């Protein structure tokens, strides 16, 4: 018993501290995929015709970046989000902030003309998967 205690005590302390303190680095609750919501959001950039602009070719970021900053921007602006409850006005505000954040990581120029930011919501309905595409925000690139 004593040897098991000595073999685990630092790990147990880290575990207990993480549970107490929560998601504050260097502690973590490892929340990835701890719950599966009944929807999933994904984001993309397109031109005015809806043609995809793969954003990692123009910005130095991971392909899940837009998804992460969506949550951060909503939290920062105290906007309740998820399962398409956001209003058009809120989406426009969020989209503008997301584009500003994205532009901080620009690697190469985007095509000139209208650039649109879209949100796709995937959801389960009647034993199959559905999706809903919503244009959140657009800006003109000169």
């Amino acid at each position, binding site marked *: 018993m004593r040897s098991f205690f000595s*073999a*685990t*005590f*630092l*790990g*147990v302390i*880290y*575990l207990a501290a*993480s*549970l107490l303190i929560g*998601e*504050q*680095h*260097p*502690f*973590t*609750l*490892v*929340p*990835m*995929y*701890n*719950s*599966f*919501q*009944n*929807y*999933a*959001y*994904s*984001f*993309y*950039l397109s031109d005015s015709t809806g043609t*995809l602009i*793969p*954003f*990692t*070719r123009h910005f130095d*970021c*991971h*392909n*899940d*970046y*837009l*998804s*992460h*900053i969506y949550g*951060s*921007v909503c*939290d*920062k602006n105290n906007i309740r989000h998820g399962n398409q409850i956001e209003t058009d006005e809120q989406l426009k505000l969020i989209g503008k902030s997301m584009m500003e*954040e994205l532009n*901080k*990581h620009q690697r190469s120029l985007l095509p000139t003309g209208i650039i649109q930011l879209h949100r*796709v919501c*995937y*959801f*389960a309905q009647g*034993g199959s*998967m559905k999706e809903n595409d919503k244009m959140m925000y657009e800006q003109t690139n000169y």
Partner: protein
Amino acid sequence: MSKPITDTSANSGTAWFFIKLSLLIFWLGNMAVMLTQVSPAALLPVGFNKLVHLSFLFTTPGKVSIAILLFTLSMLYLLEKSMRYVLIGQFLLSVIIISQHESSGMFHHATVFSPLFAVQAIAYWQSHRNHEFNLAHFRTQYSIQIIAATYTLAGISKLTASGLDWVNSGNYFALQVIKNYSFIYFGEGDKQALSQGYAIAGSMFQHAHLIQLLLAGSLFLELFCFTALISHRVRVLYAIALVAMHTGILIVMGIPFGVIAPVMIIFFLNPLFFIATCAVKVRSFILKSI
């Protein structure tokens, strides 16, 4: 001429050297990626950034200074010099870089680096205070405890957020799958990834029971990861099971091995040491045969 590997035990100095080498390569790679991505302005300060504002460190001159410090500490770590202070430095640098990265709205899920260096520092300080302390054993064993704790936390997090019903979320899991594959398509323009995502998500809707079984298996593995501390043999078996789990996640969800999986492989299996030991054995066998 390099020194031959004579001690092949898991706690030998050579085994520790290969753990450090693997960890350093991985740590430096991750820190470099995060350092290039962060900017001085934080979108939403989290963690350490809530307490201290160190945005000046992420200007260009600041980043160059951090890079020099990262390299210097890495060399000292590899050469086993001033370890008590070097490990504190590596811990602090990890905390600062990861906090700034997370404050920028990016999540690299690299948290494990900071506590790993912290517990290694604890081992070296304990050894400094008590000369009978088994440093060779505990500098690795403490790290393994942190990895086990991280996996266990992942399991607890699932139970607290969703309860045991987490294993019944197959359909919602399928939505996460298509989301992850859509990230690849939307981010990189890889149309094939999206088609693959639809195919996998569709089959998950069809085979709900199999998904339930796999989810239950992965939850069990995470929750009981402390059993990997029982013995070296159990740890190797556990590592193989975890690698299988991560490979399944990679294939099904399109999520590549993150930070925790390679770190687990380094400490649970020490593959570089294994390869080096095998190479030495093969060499001596060939020499004897001749």
